[in-house]
């Protein structure tokens, strides 16, 4: 839905690595030219598995006990409260269990355009019969022939009217002896075709229920009954459990009986209860009526697929749609799946946006942002191949301690068309996120650019730094793509970067030593930078276009693109 916004930064959650077999004896056959201190392979953003583990930083939580990032897939949701998104009234969970998960007040959506319906009076003064009116497409319940006497408790009135409508419709479609012509004052024939779609064969079996809902209740009751009978006879029916148990226990165990039907008896067909059908199959006919009607109303009188599938009774014609009751929404608290620690707990009040507990990754792991070094030279959608593009990578530290950040990336990005990536300063320090007042009250002096890290011959300096952030330069040289048609994904330059932060933090010792001991903690994660889209090599100047990168990162929503390339290697993210 969104156009891919460049550049975007996605973080990989390691939860997918524990799924499936994991070979601990995988040899350290890592490439020598990859300067990564951890064992294992680099993160391939184009591998099929990695697409499912990439998330923007906003969606990630952090578990303090496990000291690891948690993505939406590895947290467990628990519902705190239910509320209607339209009237913002809280619905107690007992009501949800009994009445269903829709609002039972006056909240409905338009079946045509899905906007909100409002209760309006048909006449000028506020006393006339009321209808539900859509203010966007001007559909109202008058179009299906329904009006309400009171403006409150529309759900109850609507249910009553629909039940009455289908009851009279079915009775009119059944035997013609009893013809209730005068029962209802409103035209109800539009609703008749919604329920009377089956021709009932004249058979000795009792006539089935008229409405789909009553039919469902009947079927459900029948199958519940069959289920009870099956369970009473034999555990799991047809002696399957007994046979299974017999396989594993020999000798004395065989004589043991499981339930009232013993093993010997259960093998006989007498006790094998079959699930019986409620009634023999019926011939479903009667579509001619609908087809005739569709011919009359034409294309614009029939429902579209989206309108049809969201309705309960699958109507084919626009005159049979019903207003949609609003689905309830929930406030959920999230829990780490492994250690059961609560990560997010909202307040139970519906209108409050505060959280009682909020352990988000943003406040624990260093945050990456990227922007261009030279505003005029880079067009994110048309990166020039074989030329040196420079980007500024900013690492922001949310912790109260100083961290040492190490960035690592393979020299050539993985994939069919590798781009060359250089990080000019792979190791640097980022200051602690101290109080704002310390910066305001103290002198406005910026710390000197620290020269740190292994000198590799390149100028290993940082570009800029502030109170709790540091900016380094990233150079990317995209390759020259062949002129053949490639998938859209091949054009995107994806750079995997391993971010490793080491810091010392004070821990409180409970065993009464009394001294404050600093503990060395470390955290690392893989991140994928989607830098831009490669273009064709042009001889002249690149056209300048203010692309999305000019906006500040905090207002931009990052999207994760589906890496659907035919990846071969299943890469394991290395995390100590």
């Amino acid at each position, binding site marked *: 839905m969104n156009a891919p916004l460049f550049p975007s930064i996605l973080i990989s959650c390691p939860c997918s690595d524990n799924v499936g077999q994991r070979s601990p004896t995988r040899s350290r056959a890592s490439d020598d030219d990859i300067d990564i201190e951890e064992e294992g392979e680099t993160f391939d953003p184009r591998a099929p598995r990695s697409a499912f583990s990439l998330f923007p930083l906003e969606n990630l939580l952090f578990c303090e006990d496990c000291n690891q990032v948690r993505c939406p897939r590895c947290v467990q949701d628990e519902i705190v409260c239910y509320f209607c*998104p339209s009237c913002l009234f809280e619905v107690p969970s007992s009501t949800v269990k009994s009445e269903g998960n829709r609002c039972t007040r006056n909240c409905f959506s338009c079946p045509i355009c*899905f906007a*909100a319906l409002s209760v309006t009076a048909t006449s000028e003064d506020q006393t006339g019969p009321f209808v539900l009116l859509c*203010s966007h497409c001007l559909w109202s319940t008058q179009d299906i022939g329904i009006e309400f006497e009171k403006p409150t408790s529309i759900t109850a009135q609507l249910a009553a009217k629909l039940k009455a409508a289908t009851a009279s419709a079915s009775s009119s479609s059944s035997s013609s002896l009893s013809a209730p012509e005068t029962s209802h004052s409103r035209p109800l024939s539009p609703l008749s075709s919604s329920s009377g779609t089956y021709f009932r064969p004249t058979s000795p079996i009792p006539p089935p229920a008229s409405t789909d809902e009553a039919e469902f209740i009947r079927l459900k009751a029948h199958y519940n009954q069959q289920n009870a009978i099956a369970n009473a006879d034999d555990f799991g029916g047809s002696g399957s459990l007994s046979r299974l148990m017999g396989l594993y226990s020999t000798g004395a165990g065989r004589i043991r009986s499981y339930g009232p039907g013993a093993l010997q008896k259960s093998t006989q067909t007498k006790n094998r209860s079959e699930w019986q059908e409620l009634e023999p199959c019926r011939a479903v006919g009667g579509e001619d009526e609908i087809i005739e009607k569709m011919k009359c109303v034409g294309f614009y009188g029939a429902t579209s697929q989206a309108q049809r599938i969201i309705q309960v009774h699958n109507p084919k014609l626009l005159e049979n749609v019903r207003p949609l009751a609003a689905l309830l*929404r929930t406030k959920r608290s999230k829990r780490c799946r492994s250690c059961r620690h609560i990560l997010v707990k909202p307040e139970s009040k519906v*209108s409050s946006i505060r959280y009682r507990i*909020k352990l988000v990754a943003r406040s624990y792991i260093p945050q990456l942002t990227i922007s261009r070094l030279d505003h005029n030279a880079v067009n994110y959608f048309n990166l020039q191949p074989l030329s040196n593009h420079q980007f500024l990578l900013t690492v922001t530290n949310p912790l109260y301690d100083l961290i040492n950040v190490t960035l690592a990336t393979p020299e050539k990005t993985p994939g069919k068309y590798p781009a060359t990536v250089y990080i000019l300063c792979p190791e640097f320090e980022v200051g602690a996120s101290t109080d704002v007042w310390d910066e305001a009250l103290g002198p406005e002096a910026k710390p000197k650019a620290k020269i740190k890290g292994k000198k590799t011959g390149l100028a290993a300096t940082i570009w800029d730094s502030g109170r709790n952030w540091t900016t380094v330069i990233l150079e990317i040289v995209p390759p020259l793509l062949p002129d053949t048609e490639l998938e859209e994904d091949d054009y995107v330059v994806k750079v995997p970067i391993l971010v490793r932060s080491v810091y010392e933090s004070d821990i409180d010792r409970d065993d009464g030593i009394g001294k404050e001991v600093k503990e060395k903690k470390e955290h690392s994660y893989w991140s994928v930078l989607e830098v831009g889209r490669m273009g064709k090599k042009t001889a002249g100047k690149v056209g300048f276009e203010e692309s999305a990168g000019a906006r500040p990162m*905090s207002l931009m*929503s990052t999207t994760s693109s589906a890496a659907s390339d035919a990846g071969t290697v299943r890469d394991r993210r290395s995390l100590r």
Partner: protein
Amino acid sequence: MPPKQVKGEYIETDTGNKVSRKSNILGSQNIILGGKTIIQADCTIRGDLRRSGAPGQHGNVAIAVGRYCFFARSSVLRPPGKTHRGFYPMKLGDHVFIGEGAVVEAAMVGSFVHIGAGSVIGKFSIIKDCVRIEEGTVVAPNTVIPPFSRVAGRPGVVIEELPETAQDSLECGRIVKQIYRMI
């Protein structure tokens, strides 16, 4: 970040707001601005549309705006009203960003709301806190948008639930402070 404005284009009010001289403010005595709010050029704010009745004194507010709000160019703020019943006061929360060319006629907009450029918010709609409205959305009248939603389309419906960090992403305090210092 917008280019540096010509000096003198913005008036600073006594409560600390920066209002462009080229903006179109009617009925300014009925408008309350919270502080550190920026109103760009060509922005229309209709403070003259208010219910004139018994409370005809100075306490009759048409539009109340919170702090750190940003109204981009050509945006329109209009209090909603019904014929024969007058206009309803409009209330905006803090950190509300209204994009270029957006027309907002909501009855109430909460805090930390991002309204994209070119969108239309219908009359008497209620937008709660931490909502992002995408560009070009047309929100039907009388809609209620719950907190932590992302709204798009015509008519605007909730397409996604925003994560818990939405408040930090939608907070425009930092950007407003930077622009405030520049202009």
